[in-house]
């Protein structure tokens, strides 16, 4: 394995990287669409030999790097000699911000970290807070089912986006459109249930923000009705496509030892043949009661990661169907923990102008119960106190193990909340997967890792 040399060096050049100052050798400033000039200039320079290497910045504004990821490439012709990923362009201080908001408000921040799988960020954080509070056993059954339902819907939308952009980056626009068509349907369902298409803040410490609105079960059933056909359509474009196979088979190889070395989990790990899925091995939210399989492949390459993702979509559809049946048969019930010192007091309702405070709840606190008003006021302004301590809660996000390390000092705000984002760990493995390969394979490698820079930089 090419471990040491690839990750050892300090990533990124010094502050003067953009200028000629301090740079070794000749510097060309490339603004796009002027490759001919660069090549001509390099040829005319006279110092070109067979061993001459070219250092190229790919990103941070590059359409194929999945967001603001910067790759510093040292190229020998078309061969990648060295690759250094540089991150930090999307750092927004989410973890620091959470330290200045209540435990409940923290959800609104962490949901924005990995923006393609917001529900998983929320779930990991809320599971950590609930563990700190010691109320895991008190979470209503219905809330857990709704969490599972939303997580699996989110897994589908995340995977189809990953696969769709994978196709787009390799030059297949159709795949992107087919993938985004599915995502659109998922987002419609999510909007119906949570009120928002992204950054839902739906999962809250103690439960979820609201129960299913009228018509949601029908929308879910309609979605899972068309989903198998649409996912099959997507697969028919990719699975045996000779161009796609040529670009992905045996590309970006990372075996089990490599995954362990770099802390890689999720579909990449399962594409090495190890059926490690936290939903099975360390179940949360009642995943042990659902019937689903953990798809694995043994190719360790970009193609098998794609196949694992597509197989997982089919499993997610099965879980969603089971969730819908359970929700329908269980009937209405609480979706927030009964403890009035913790459970968020406001119930939401869908009005003509969108989701807002439930008129019934407002009537209750304003004219019926002074105690309810006090509880509402105290919880909303002050929040609840969490006993001191620290916990680590992990969920299986579409990308791998998403962990939340939450520390409390006994106050109303997180003393420290850290998200262990899978993409952050996975990007470290990029040099090992691409060095010695071709420049074009970097695109396939990055796309097969499916990194979301919002989660990487937080």
């Amino acid at each position, binding site marked *: 394995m090419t471990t040491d040399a690839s990750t050892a060096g300090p990533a990124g050049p010094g502050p003067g990287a953009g200028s000629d100052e301090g740079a070794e050798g000749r510097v060309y400033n490339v603004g796009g669409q002027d490759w001919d000039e660069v090549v001509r200039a390099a040829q005319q320079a006279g110092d070109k030999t067979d061993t001459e290497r070219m250092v190229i910045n790919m990103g941070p504004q590059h359409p194929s790097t999945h967001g603001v990821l910067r790759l510093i490439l040292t190229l020998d012709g078309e061969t990648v000699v060295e690759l250094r990923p540089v991150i930090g362009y999307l750092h927004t201080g989410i973890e620091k911000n959470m330290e200045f908001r209540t435990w409940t408000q923290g959800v609104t921040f962490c949901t924005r970290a990995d923006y393609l799988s917001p529900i998983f960020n929320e779930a990991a954080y809320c599971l950590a807070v609930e563990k700190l509070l010691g109320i895991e056993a008190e979470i209503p059954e219905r809330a857990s089912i709704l969490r599972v339902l939303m997580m699996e819907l989110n897994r589908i939308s995340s995977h189809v986006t990953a696969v769709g952009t994978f196709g787009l980056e390799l030059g297949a626009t159709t795949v992107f459109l087919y993938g985004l068509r599915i995502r659109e349907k998922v987002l419609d369902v999510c909007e119906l249930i949570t009120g928002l298409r992204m950054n839902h803040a739906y999962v809250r410490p103690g439960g979820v923000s609201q129960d299913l609105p009228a018509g949601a079960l029908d929308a879910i059933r309609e979605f899972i009705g068309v989903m198998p056909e649409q996912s099959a359509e997507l697969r028919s474009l990719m699975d045996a496509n000779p161009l796609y196979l040529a670009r992905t088979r045996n590309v970006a190889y990372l075996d089990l030892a490599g995954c362990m070395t770099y802390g890689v989990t999720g579909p990449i790990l399962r594409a090495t043949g190890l059926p490690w899925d936290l939903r099975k091995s*360390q179940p949360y939210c009642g995943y042990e009661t659902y019937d689903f399989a953990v798809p694995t492949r043994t190719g360790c390459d970009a193609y098998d990661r794609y196949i694992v993702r597509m197989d997982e979509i089919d499993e997610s559809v099965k879980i969603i169907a089971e969730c819908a049946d359970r929700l329908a048969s269980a009937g209405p019930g609480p979706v927030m923990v009964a403890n009035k010192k913790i459970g968020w007091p406001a119930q939401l309702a869908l009005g003509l102008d969108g989701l807002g405070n439930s008129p019934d709840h407002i009537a209750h606190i304003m004219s019926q119960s002074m105690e309810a008003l006090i509880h509402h006021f105290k919880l909303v302004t002050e929040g609840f106190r969490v006993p001191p301590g620290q916990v680590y809660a992990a969920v299986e996000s579409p990308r791998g193990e998403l962990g939340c390390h939450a520390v409390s000092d006994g106050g109303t705000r997180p003393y420290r909340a850290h998200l262990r984002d899978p993409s952050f760990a996975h990007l470290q493995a990029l040099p090992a997967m691409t060095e010695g390969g071709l420049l074009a394979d970097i695109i396939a490698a990055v796309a097969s890792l499916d990194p979301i820079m919002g989660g990487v930089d937080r």
Partner: protein
Amino acid sequence: MSEATPPGQDPPGGAEPDEAALAGQQRLQEQVVRTGMFGTETTGDTSGYGGLQVRRAPPPSSPRPYGSYFDEVADALATRLEAGGSGFADAVERVVVDRGELTLHVRPEHLVEVARLLRDEPALGFELCGGVSGVHYPSDAGRELHAVYHLLSITHNRRIRLEVSVPDADPHIPSLVGVYPTCDWHERETWDFFGLVFDGHPGLTRIEMPDDWKGHPQRKDYPLGGIPVEYRGATVPPPEERRSYQ
């Protein structure tokens, strides 16, 4: 809370003292970390909470048996540490079992040895490291900066946590990149945000903040700045100075 024992409840001499009373007495020995309720120091606190004193919780340490698989892990680690020359008590300061999770507080000088054993010993088998997370406790004198490592064993399906604490004046921790290469970026992040120096790291540079950034933003003493909106001579104070529930 008063230090004097309430009249009429004096434990008669010879009788065993009340456990809760003992715990309360011990708590009163601890350092006061905070007064008041809202973080106000400049103006009079009219809330009635002004006299509140919050004392630091004593560092928890769990007695044996730890329960679950924790004893097994501790035993296997102790056996191997003793075979290697250093005792369990030398390497592991204390063991905390809290909310079903095991935390080993490891002395910095033994961190690499402990991590290597945890990874390589078949009975332990913690192959996967979830990375490092820093925590800054400015009130914990002499051990302000903590580095927390989350380890996962796929072989045994177990999780444990290592915690290392160092003083702010000498924030040096040996790097775990040699044992878990995945710690590379995580340690850079912890350096970037907390100023923890990981000795032996191949290239400890900033990772999230710009290279020329000053300070370490996630430390509790990092100045946040305020919005310089002035209204009749007053400005909006930065978040950490605002009145808020604590």
